[in-house]
């Protein structure tokens, strides 16, 4: 046991001290944060508010200018086109909408002027505003109030509730899917990155020819376990660093980019430009809070998910790590690994690929059930089912039991292949050969 600890220490320390580890630990969270922050930043930078000047010669908007829509605000200028044009030139307005006197049955002659050409979305929004105004006029000619029509439109909110033995919990499919993907992806990524590190580590020892010295001091099994556990600890360290740094960076970022502040500053700018009230700003603020509310409403069983995540993260890694170690011991060079990699990585990739089709759309179906039982697929499959709720405790327990048994079996098989493989040089190994190794005597 002390020897496993010694090996564990070496594997852990040499990796954690590597420059690549430190760089990855720092860049990882930056990338994660960037993944979320960049779209937001781009949105705030490019979608700055647009102000459209309206020259309403036909009196189309005599009662009321179109409502602000998203980032677009309307403001009234002189109705006379030449005057409006000169005013527009001097102003900072983004576009000038000229509405002549219209024949409601056949509205033509509406013009939009801009300095640099309109964006697709701005053009669409202006068109929609005019369409709306024309519709309203036509409705009132037909004797229908706009508000009456609006009231007739249906907009039903579905509240999804998952009914389980623990009682009802309201759920949010969107949030569940997000959490499921995140858990699944993290496990998938870590198994790959660190599983391959185990394989490389074993191959390094083998090609360096140090392995014979080491296993004259320790049992091959101890060497393998020390390595698998040591690299697992490296993975955990990296994960912990990522979580801590991500949280740190995003809370620092949130200080300057919180939805509240963003909305606030935008409203101020708009107010300065148009002088409209802040009534709509409040709506936006609520919109911004919707995601937060959804998260709160989703009522995920967070302790269960976090606990299971750690279990499947470790379990899946150990299961695959043992197999990757066996592959590393059986071959002489990286190029020879391919034929053995395929059957090991196949189930892993498969789970991730079918996750959308099967797991998140039907998280409690037959396929999902079996995939979450088989140790090859269960670490990802179960983590993708859990956030949706409704996984019975017996299934979770059985899946965990199978994973533990699978790990023990994988270690047993791997230790036997490893023991023979690390001392075997210059021989192309076949599957038949591997199966023979398992029954060699110590």
């Amino acid at each position, binding site marked *: 046991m002390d020897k496993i600890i010694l090996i564990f220490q070496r594997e852990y320390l*040499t990796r954690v001290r590597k420059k690549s580890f430190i760089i990855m630990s720092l860049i990882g969270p930056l990338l994660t944060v960037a993944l979320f922050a960049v779209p937001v930043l781009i949105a705030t930078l490019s979608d700055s508010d647009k102000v459209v000047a309206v020259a309403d010669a036909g009196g189309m908007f005599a009662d009321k200018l179109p409502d602000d829509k998203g980032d677009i605000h309307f403001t009234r200028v002189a109705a006379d086109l030449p005057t409006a044009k000169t005013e527009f030139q001097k102003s900072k307005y983004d576009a000038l909408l000229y509405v002549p006197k219209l024949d409601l049955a056949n509205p033509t002659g509406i013009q939009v002027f801009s300095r640099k050409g309109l964006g697709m979305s701005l053009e669409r929004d202006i068109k929609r505003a005019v369409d709306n105004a024309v519709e309203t006029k036509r409705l009132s000619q037909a004797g229908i109030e706009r508000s009456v029509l609006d009231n007739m439109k249906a907009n039903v909110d579905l509240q999804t509730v998952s009914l389980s033995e623990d009682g009802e919990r309201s759920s949010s499919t969107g949030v569940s899917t997000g959490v499921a993907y995140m858990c699944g992806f993290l496990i998938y990524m870590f198994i790959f990155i660190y599983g391959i590190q185990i394989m490389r580590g074993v191959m*390094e*020892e083998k090609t*360096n*020819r140090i392995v014979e*010295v080491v296993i*004259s001091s320790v049992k091959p099994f101890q060497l393998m376990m020390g390595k698998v556990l040591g690299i697992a600890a490296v993975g955990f360290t990296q994960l912990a660093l990522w979580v801590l740094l991500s949280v740190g960076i995003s809370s620092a970022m949130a200080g300057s980019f919180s939805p509240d502040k963003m909305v606030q500053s935008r409203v101020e700018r708009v107010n300065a430009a148009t002088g409209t009230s802040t009534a709509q700003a409040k709506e936006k603020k609520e919109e911004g809070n919707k995601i937060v509310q959804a998260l709160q409403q989703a009522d995920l069983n967070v302790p269960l998910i976090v606990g299971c995540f750690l279990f499947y993260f470790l379990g899946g890694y150990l299961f695959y790590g043992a197999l990757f170690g066996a592959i590393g011991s059986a071959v002489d060079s990286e190029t020879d690994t391919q034929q053995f990699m395929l059957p090991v990585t196949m189930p892993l990739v498969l789970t991730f690929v079918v996750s959308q089709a099967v797991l998140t759309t039907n998280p409690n179906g037959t396929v999902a059930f079996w995939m979450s039982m088989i140790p090859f697929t269960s670490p990802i499959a179960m983590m993708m089912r859990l956030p949706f709720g409704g996984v019975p405790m017996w299934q979770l327990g059985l899946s965990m039991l199978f994973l533990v048994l699978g790990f023990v079996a994988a270690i047993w098989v791997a230790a036997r292949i490893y023991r023979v493989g690390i001392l075997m040089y210059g021989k192309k190994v076949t599957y038949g050969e591997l199966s023979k190794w398992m029954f*060699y005597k110590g």
Partner: protein
Amino acid sequence: MAAQPILQAIDVHKAYAAHVALNGVSLDIPEGSIFGLLGPNGAGKTSLIRIITQITGADSGEIRVRGEKLQPKHISEIGYLPEERGLYKKMKVGEQLLYLARLKGLSRTDATQRIKNWLERLDIRAWAEKNVEDLSKGMQQKVQFVATVLHEPSIIILDEPFSGFDPINANLIKDEILKLRDNGATIIFSTHRMESVEELCDSIALINRSRKVLDGSVRDIKDTFKTQTYVVEGKGRPMILHPDFEVLEHRERENGHFYDIIKLHAGTTSNDLLRYLIGNVEVHAFRELIPSINDIFIRRVRETMPESLVEEVTI
């Protein structure tokens, strides 16, 4: 050899899927000696060593250390320098030695002290903080040797010890090995280059095709395999025919000098030959032609094996 051997192999068998590596090999290795485990490549030497170092197990038979069955606790008593040697390239020399020593069960403080001593002894103190990959091959060999003996094993097994070493390091290591032997350690050399260790070994075992073909002290073996052949150099005309001697080879040199190889017939002693020579020629040199271990090995293999196989085992 009345004393308890430090290491014994008793009827050891080991078979792999395709071939038999060891077929009933028994050995006694006396304590404090230098023992040569000799034989061609593929004879089974490395298999035997891997059983002794507990890397693999024997199919049947037993290894005993001081009369006791080989156990995991004996790992710390054995130092092993494999034929294929290497180090962790990205690790510092000092750290690496510390790691390997601690795997052998040494405490951190003991190991640190001994590493310091050894690095000083081999004059490589300055390397402790260097990465292994920055060292030359010869330097790495020294480090490997230190790693082998750091835990002060009583049995040191060196597989093809001089194959990778340059002549200077080989001599240095030879001296260190002799010092270790003088301090009571038992050294086992395993090699197919018999001439390289012949002069160092006290006793040897010859292994061929998974069987031991010969063992014993070098002196005894050479006595047994003496051919009663002598080299004579001198001036004059040596006999051509004599009932007690036979001239195997006769070479004339300038000014009436000669070089002869003469075999004594049974019952004749070297003194008989010498007496005869003194009466007839002027003797400049007279020495026994002692067979090399290599010669003995080939002879022994010829005796025990069909002629057709001899070609393969000569080295």
